[in-house]
């Protein structure tokens, strides 16, 4: 979507609603710890690996995602330190974050987790086609792009009900219904959450701007890829992002990526077997 830059007064409305949110989702303690460790250049992969491995449930979830069709590893990743070496700090941190908020995503909206993993796989597919060497990081950005919807569903249930009712009446995209009901949308709640949690720009900007990717300045390509991936996974009808419609594409983002219409075929050919294989992480519990 190219319009809908929210007018100034919306900011105060967002702030007012955010003040109403009593149970601020806290950044999972372990994610904060990893961030602090990674900031220190002396930190080794095995130290971070040891920290994550202390939580066996969390490690198991992270390893399950690392071994899923997402990454298409030919060999099984059997330890967190191996995942750190193969996938990198940022990706493992993203998977730890995802595992920590998995229950929240599942509880918030039926189909949103499936939409999220579908968007992650599609982000990975587009990034792969474009020959990006940071495909795994872009994939994690796709995984978390709709966290703002989780904040909405869990903290503003009455507004959420109204938005859902508006969508059910037909023809309206979820974020358009959000604007009608709230004067802002989940991308702004996502921005707030990203600031609150101190997430890196590679995750924060796609969360904030996946509906307005032409506004991205820090991670424009990553944001544009998540924007296109969101469209592709909605077109597939995989999962449920709150409505069942394909939103318009931002031509600025499309052209910046240098995509062509003929690229849809190879993207879908990469994506389809991945989606078929993602059943092993539709529930990572």
């Amino acid at each position, binding site marked *: 979507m190219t319009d809908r830059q929210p007018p100034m007064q919306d900011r105060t409305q967002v702030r007012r609603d955010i003040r109403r949110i009593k149970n601020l989702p806290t950044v999972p303690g372990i994610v904060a710890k990893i961030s602090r460790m990674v900031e220190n250049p002396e930190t080794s992969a095995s130290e971070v690996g040891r920290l994550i491995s202390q939580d066996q449930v969390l490690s198991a979830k992270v390893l399950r995602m690392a071994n899923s069709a997402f990454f298409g590893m030919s060999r099984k990743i059997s330890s967190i330190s191996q995942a750190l070496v193969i996938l990198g700090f940022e990706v493992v941190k993203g998977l730890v974050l995802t595992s920590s908020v998995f229950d929240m995503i599942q509880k918030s909206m039926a189909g949103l987790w499936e939409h999220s993993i579908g968007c992650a796989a599609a982000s990975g597919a587009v990034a792969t086609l474009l020959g990006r060497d940071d495909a795994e990081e872009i994939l994690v950005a796709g995984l978390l792009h709709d966290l703002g919807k989780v904040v909405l569903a869990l903290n503003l249930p009455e507004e959420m009900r109204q938005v859902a009712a508006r969508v059910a009446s037909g023809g309206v995209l979820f974020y358009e219904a959000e604007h009608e009901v709230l004067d802002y949308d989940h991308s702004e709640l996502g921005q707030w959450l990203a600031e609150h949690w101190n997430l890196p720009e590679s995750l924060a900007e796609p969360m904030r701007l996946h509906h307005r990717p032409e506004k991205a300045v820090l991670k424009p390509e990553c944001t544009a890829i998540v924007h296109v991936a969101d469209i592709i996974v909605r077109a597939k*009808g995989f999962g449920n992002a709150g409505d069942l419609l394909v939103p318009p594409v931002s031509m600025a983002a499309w052209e910046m990526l240098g995509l062509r219409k003929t690229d849809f075929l190879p993207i879908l050919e990469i994506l389809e077997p991945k989606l078929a*294989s993602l059943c092993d992480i539709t529930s990572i519990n």
Partner: protein
Amino acid sequence: MKRIPIDKAQPGQILAEKLTRHDGVLLAGQGSEITEGLLRMLGRMNIDTVVIEEEETRSAAEVEEEFRRFSEDLEARFVRIDEGSVLIALKKTMLYLAEKSRDETLALMADPAEGETGLPGSAAAPETTPAESPAAPSGGKSPGAPGAAK
């Protein structure tokens, strides 16, 4: 093909992908049959999923019906997209892939032996249109080979 948790795997199912131990050693090749012994071994090795060939349980009419429903749903999802949008190529490509998959399934039903050799898993180039399929039930309706749509 379908990835399933190991506790859902049954002896007699066919592996659609080779199975390797965590260190890369081959346990069972692609196309081999799952046995009781293999399942016990996988249980001991903490391998939690396998990829199997899906058995076709649908009738030809059901395959057709499923495709018809798919294209209806696809149209409904694209209702907000203008005819001039690049996303129309996305819709056409998805329709093309669905038609191809339907035609391959129907061809396999008509002649299973023929189908065995024509199961490359991933699709052929778009130039090989579904027209070469013996089952082409949609008559002259071209899916609009997406490659043509620049």
